[in-house]
């Protein structure tokens, strides 16, 4: 029995005081070693072709330069591909995208390194790049084989349907724009070992890939991460190349090397969210209920597979969102283009799947002239019937119907919708729109083996507790939640818990902090470790006090039978009795399995649900628009920390809003990215969120599965709540052809089509 007093509280972020006073250290803030060198990367300035000739002499002779390296200087594997090969550190000859690294320098200062890089002379043999998805499909240019899935006979069902609709859709890419850019600092150690400070979501894989690149054992590389200034998926694999290069430079110079990537270079070199092209045909009934769906999903993976397999799989897993689709015929293309290798981004393909089906449902409503909230409800999964997904998983925890009904009431949706219709009838230039959309998002890595985590817990003799686990603090409040979990388990106060950096020396073989599951997995591992220590204490108590039975940890005390003892005292006593007060813990997510071949199984332990109502106004002369009001009801299970959860919901929504409205990535016809700086790539600012921004946690929420505190993962799911804003804009244009991102230009195009 736990006291549970540290849960569901509004505890502030563990580092918040340091954040606001500038004391929280990020990698670039760490005191620099004396002889530190600074790295910079030289990259290709064509999208496809070969290097005819490269002249590095001026780079080598440039002021302050100590070392220049190319692929020839890689002792081990020239590849940073996480799952599949295909991501060279430095290209040997074949250029596959504009911005692909060719060489790197180490120089005395950052400025000198960057100035040196500019002095390279390269002659290229340019070839015609493949730059868009449709072109790639036509040329059968894929990074991975297409995936097909079928459930029932969709073609037949569509044919038999009273109504059918077909069309094409697009969703755009998205740059992560973590505020802390990519950065890595390597410090040489004894025996050719290296210590790496990396801004990464995945220290273990950084360790492995660096080791392979320099042809050393994993145990010669240590990776340490205290916190990162945002990741959002952009540092799940895309950070590896920077740690590899800082380490290669360090190895060759035998000096510490910091590689801090300029914002523009970061946006040029690293992968982004996959943009998608969709083609659909849907058959449905009079009430909007879908009978069958034939669908093509095709994504821009860029030049290499990276994580595109799992990302596109997740798009498939979420093509139903919260809807029961009785028959489906789906093909998913993973297109190879001569652009950056697209990668993980909050939602990991899920948003792209949901965006598609939400558009289809919206189009059905428009066609039938029914309020889309009704068509949505008509299609929802049900509790006991209509509860098997297209990948064969039974949905056991469905609460979307209840959330949706609550939110419709709470937001006064029906009345507001009527008012908007009136407003639009009266106004020629300004038009409003409103929409409510659901989210059902599967929690777990869909690659089953990744669902494991470790922890290491020590109690020192003064009763203070130190712990480590495999997760990364990237703003999501993971350390805060884990501290709460540990404090709660031992019944001590938060002040007694210390979590230091995530460190490959402390906890090995971890998975990336991704898939929203870090609290579930690492929290589980911490509890496992704590239980082991508690076992030891139990043995001690039973010997010393001849007591067998329940032991309660509460209010800095330990209660057993009628006795109680100070936690600190107990720990100190136990030490003298030679009781081990340290343990490692492990967690693996139960119940999940997946048969990749047949695309069947239970890839997720559970689902997180939510819904949002967004209301917008647009100017039909210019396409300028504004979000007027947002109402959100989101399920986080039984919250561990409601303020952190609300922060995730708000932040997720706004990030999704950026994806679907103003954030637009563009390339020129030669494949050069044009939007490589915040002056041309516009993420939301303060003024883009509405004054009326009402976010509520679903009070009845409780995870059916046995997850810490019966809480639910909250990192990714809220991002998809922003689909409601897109649908509201679409609603305001009273046109179904609105293309994402819905920026002023695309809105105006939709109106004038």
């Amino acid at each position: 029995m736990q006291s549970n007093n540290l849960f569901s509280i509004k505890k502030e972020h563990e580092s918040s005081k340091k954040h606001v006073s500038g004391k929280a250290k990020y990698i670039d803030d760490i005191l620099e070693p004396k002889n530190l060198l600074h790295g910079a990367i030289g990259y290709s300035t064509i999208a496809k072709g070969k290097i005819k000739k490269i002249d590095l002499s001026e780079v080598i002779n440039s002021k302050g330069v100590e070392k220049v390296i190319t692929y020839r200087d890689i002792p081990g594997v020239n590849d940073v591909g996480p799952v599949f090969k295909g991501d060279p550190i430095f290209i040997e000859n074949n250029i596959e995208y504009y911005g692909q690294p060719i060489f790197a320098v180490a120089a005395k200062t950052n400025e000198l390194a960057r100035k040196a890089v500019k002095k390279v002379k390269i002659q290229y043999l340019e070839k015609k790049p493949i730059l868009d998805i449709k072109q790639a499909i036509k040329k059968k240019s894929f990074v991975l084989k297409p995936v097909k899935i079928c459930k029932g006979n969709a073609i037949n069902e569509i044919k038999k349907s009273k109504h059918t609709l077909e069309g094409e859709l697009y969703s755009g890419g998205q740059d992560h724009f973590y505020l802390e850019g990519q950065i890595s600092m390597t410090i040489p150690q004894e025996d050719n070992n290296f210590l790496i400070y990396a801004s990464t979501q995945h220290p273990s894989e950084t360790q492995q890939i660096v080791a392979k690149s320099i042809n050393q054992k994993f145990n010669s590389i240590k990776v340490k991460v205290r916190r990162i200034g945002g990741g959002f998926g952009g540092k799940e694999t895309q950070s590896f190349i920077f740690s590899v290069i800082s380490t290669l430079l360090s190895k060759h110079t035998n000096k510490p090397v910091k590689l801090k990537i300029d914002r523009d270079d970061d946006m040029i070199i690293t992968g982004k969210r996959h943009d998608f092209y969709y083609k659909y045909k849907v058959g449905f009934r009079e009430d909007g209920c879908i009978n069958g769906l034939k669908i093509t999903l095709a994504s821009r993976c860029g030049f290499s597979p990276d994580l595109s397999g799992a990302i596109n799989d997740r798009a498939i897993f979420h093509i139903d969102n919260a809807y029961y689709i009785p028959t489906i015929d789906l093909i998913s293309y993973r297109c190879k283009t001569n652009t950056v290798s697209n990668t993980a981004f909050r939602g990991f393909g899920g948003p792209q799947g949901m965006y598609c089906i939400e558009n289809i449902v919206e189009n059905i409503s428009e066609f039938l002239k029914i309020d889309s909230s009704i068509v949505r409800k008509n299609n929802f999964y049900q509790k006991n019937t209509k509860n098997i997904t297209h990948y064969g998983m039974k949905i056991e925890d469905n609460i979307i119907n209840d959330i949706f009904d609550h939110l419709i009431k709470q937001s006064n949706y029906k009345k507001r919708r009527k008012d908007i219709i009136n407003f639009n009838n009266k106004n020629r230039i300004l038009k409003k729109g409103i929409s409510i959309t659901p989210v059902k998002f599967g929690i777990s890595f869909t690659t089953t083996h990744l669902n494991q985590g470790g922890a290491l817990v020590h109690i020192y003799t003064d009763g203070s507790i130190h712990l480590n686990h495999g997760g990364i603090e990237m703003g999501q409040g993971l350390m805060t939640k884990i501290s709460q979990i540990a404090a709660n388990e031992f019944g001590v106060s938060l002040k007694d818990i210390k979590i230091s950096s995530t460190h490959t020396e402390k906890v090995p073989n971890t998975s990336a902090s991704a898939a929203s599951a870090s609290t579930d997995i690492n929290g589980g591992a911490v509890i496992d470790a704590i239980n082991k220590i508690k076992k030891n204490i139990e043995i001690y108590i039973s010997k010393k006090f001849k007591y067998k039975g329940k032991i309660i940890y509460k209010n800095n005390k330990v209660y057993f039978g009628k006795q109680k003892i100070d936690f600190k005292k107990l720990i100190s006593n136990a030490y003298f009795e030679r009781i081990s007060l340290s343990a490692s813990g492990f967690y693996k997510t139960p119940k999940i399995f997946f048969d990749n071949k047949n695309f069947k199984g239970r890839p997720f332990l559970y689902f997180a649900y939510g819904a949002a109502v967004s209301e917008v106004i647009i100017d039909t002369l210019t396409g300028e628009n504004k979000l007027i009001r947002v109402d959100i009801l989101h399920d986080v299970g039984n919250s561990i920390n409601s303020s952190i959860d609300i922060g995730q919901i708000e932040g997720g929504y706004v990030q999704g809003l950026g994806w679907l409205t103003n954030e637009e990535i563009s390339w020129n016809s030669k494949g050069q990215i044009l939007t490589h700086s915040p002056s041309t790539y516009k993420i939301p600012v303060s003024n883009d969120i509405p004054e009326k921004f009402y976010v509520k946690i679903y009070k009845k929420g409780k995870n059916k599965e046995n997850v810490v505190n019966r809480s639910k993962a909250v990192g990714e799911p809220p991002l998809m709540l922003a689909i409601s804003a897109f649908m509201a804009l679409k609603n305001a244009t009273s046109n179904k052809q609105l293309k994402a991102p819905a920026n002023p230009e695309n809105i105006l195009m939709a109106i004038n089509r």
Partner: protein
Amino acid sequence: MIKNEIEFILNDELININNVDTNVSVLNYLRINKRLTGTKEGCASGDCGACTAIIAELKNNKLEYKAVNTCIMFLYSLHGKQLITVEHLSNTKLHPVQQSMVDNHGSQCGFCTPGFVMSMFGMYKDKVKPSNQNIDEYLAGNLCRCTGYNSIKKAAKKMYSYGRKDKFSKNENKIIKLLKKIKHNDILISKNNNKFYIPLNLKNLIKYIQNNKHYKFVTGGTDIALEVTKKNNTINSLIYLGNNKDLNYIKIKRNYINIGSATPINKIIPILKKYYPSFAEMFYRYGSTQIRNVASIGGNLGSASPIGDSLPALLALNAKLILQSKNQRLLGIKYFFKAYRKTALKNNEFIKEIRIPILKNHIFKCYKISKRIDDDISSLFVAYLIKLRNNIIIDVNIAYGGMDSIPNFAFKTQKYLIGKELNLKNIEKSKQIIEKDFNPLTDVRASSYYRKLVSKNLMDRLFLEINNNKVRI
């Protein structure tokens, strides 16, 4: 007497310096030379606000606080000012804005946080009402990718409840005394063949430019500093105009608003509010608070970008420029823009003053269209100046930005409209003519098609607004 070092106050320490490179930014100086790493770099281009710090300047015996982007500010432009960084905000106790950020959960990854704290601190020192609109105005230059801003805005709303006096109010007199000690001379820093000149007054400036070559002017630096931070170029010789009192003024004289070229945009807004509210309203969307606090109207003209926001507005208003070399000359602004980023400025000549006529019987409207409402560069911009008599258009200027390689008039449309009645029919007609005036480019900000379409549609907006219809979102 010419001095060879600058003096400024870093937090509360008086600093004399001349031994760093003349191209070094305030941000790099803080982070690398002073190891004050609380101020962050998120972009080095003035767009994200992670590097925000506060500059306090002596104005009428009082300190005036303003937020700036340290990443695009040259260190030597700090002469005579106090620079306040996030490290200095709290001692044993957090500053009200910091405590409010903590209590309202305004940080997640925390990387943007020092920048937000400083922008909020700037707002706090300005004592403005924490309305939604004011908060957006003060925070538009700060990007956060984690929080979604709601918690940050809450923190801003509640900051005053943690106390309206801070340690800076107490220390103000001490800082004022320190600042007064700083001597104002001509300053010339020479370091590794690079020069940074700060003229004491106009006279010295004129003398200096007669005797020197190959220098560049820097006023706010929000354009020119990017040469260094983004293109990794070195600018060998800089002349800093930002401090120059002889170039920093606003005077009303004989139906003209005379503005010293180094006057920052934010200082111009109040006077424009009075005479040309639409101009002022647009200026609130010019960059961000940090940009507007230093970016000058002269620099905007000097960069001569076809998407510079004040340019078409000044064109439409028939502004005049005083150009200064050894001698002065007066030039109508329509003769100023020669070709893409080329102006009528001669060697050794700079803009001294901008004169905006006060036209009480004209209607002036300008519209900035950008992808994002706040802190974004225009996709297109239009300014209208119209005089009506009995609803007949007797005078009209229509100037566009973003439609051509220079800011330019819609000559054919103007010609058509003159003498016509202002009615829907004629507006419709004029829209067809605009198409003949311009053939805009497609670029990242907008397509040619969009620019054309909107340039026409804005004629509708103009018409509706003149007739007092509310047509803005």
